[in-house]
């Protein structure tokens, strides 16, 4: 990504267990993308778990109706919103991800070159 002056950098650190907080964060990002705002997503820390294929389940995820909407389906749809590749902070990627990802060294990213930095 060369010119980032019109791009919003969205840093997601909220874990999959943060419930509605993460859902609202991704909702806002997807609406921005729908309106044509360029967005670069970067997942850091616990949020990286959200990019992985579900290998297990929790009681909350399997209860009906679920108390929180699943963000996994939202993440799987990123390619239709031009939100891929998703950056993953760190040197290695998770073994199996639901969307296209690239590993980035976040300390090498010039965040001041972006139009905005949203942190969730």
């Amino acid at each position, binding site marked *: 990504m060369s010119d980032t002056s019109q791009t*919003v950098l969205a840093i997601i650190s909220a874990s999959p267990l943060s419930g*509605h*907080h993460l859902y*609202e*964060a991704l*909702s*806002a990002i997807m*609406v*921005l993308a*729908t*309106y*044509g*705002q360029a967005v670069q997503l970067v997942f850091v820390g616990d949020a990286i778990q959200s990019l992985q294929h579900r290998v297990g389940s929790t009681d909350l995820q399997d209860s009906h109706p679920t108390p929180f909407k699943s963000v996994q389906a939202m993440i799987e749809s990123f390619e239709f919103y031009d939100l891929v590749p998703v950056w993953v902070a760190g040197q290695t990627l998770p073994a199996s991800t639901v969307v296209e990802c690239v590993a980035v060294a976040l300390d090498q990213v010039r965040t*001041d070159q972006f*139009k*905005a*930095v*949203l*942190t969730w």
Partner: protein
Amino acid sequence: MTMSLNGASSKQGIEMNVLLLLTEAPTQPLAWHAFELAQQLLQQGASLRVFFYQDAVLIANALRWQPADEPSLAAAWRQLGLDLPVCVSAALYRGITDADNAARHALGSHNLAHGFRLTGLGELAEATLDADRVVHL
């Protein structure tokens, strides 16, 4: 001489369109810092828009009681004279509604604070596209 948000200096102050995306609850100090930043931006001549999202929508709860010796963040925002859009879905999720949405969703009453208005996330997107800089607090 003042500094602009991207580091460039200007004798006239900040001549840019700035969007403040507010997500902190009124119980958090950062919510007050966001308001103080808005005050400063306006004093520096910035064209300022705000958008209340996530827990920041709680600022617009008219039923939020506070002791008399504590300032009201909602009243403070009103005094700035800005348009005060609040995300409708985030507000409804947290029990805040205006009269129209109360009727639409068969809610018993409404409690959106005076001076605030409910709107969709599309308005956040449009404001982001129009802004020179977006600050998320």
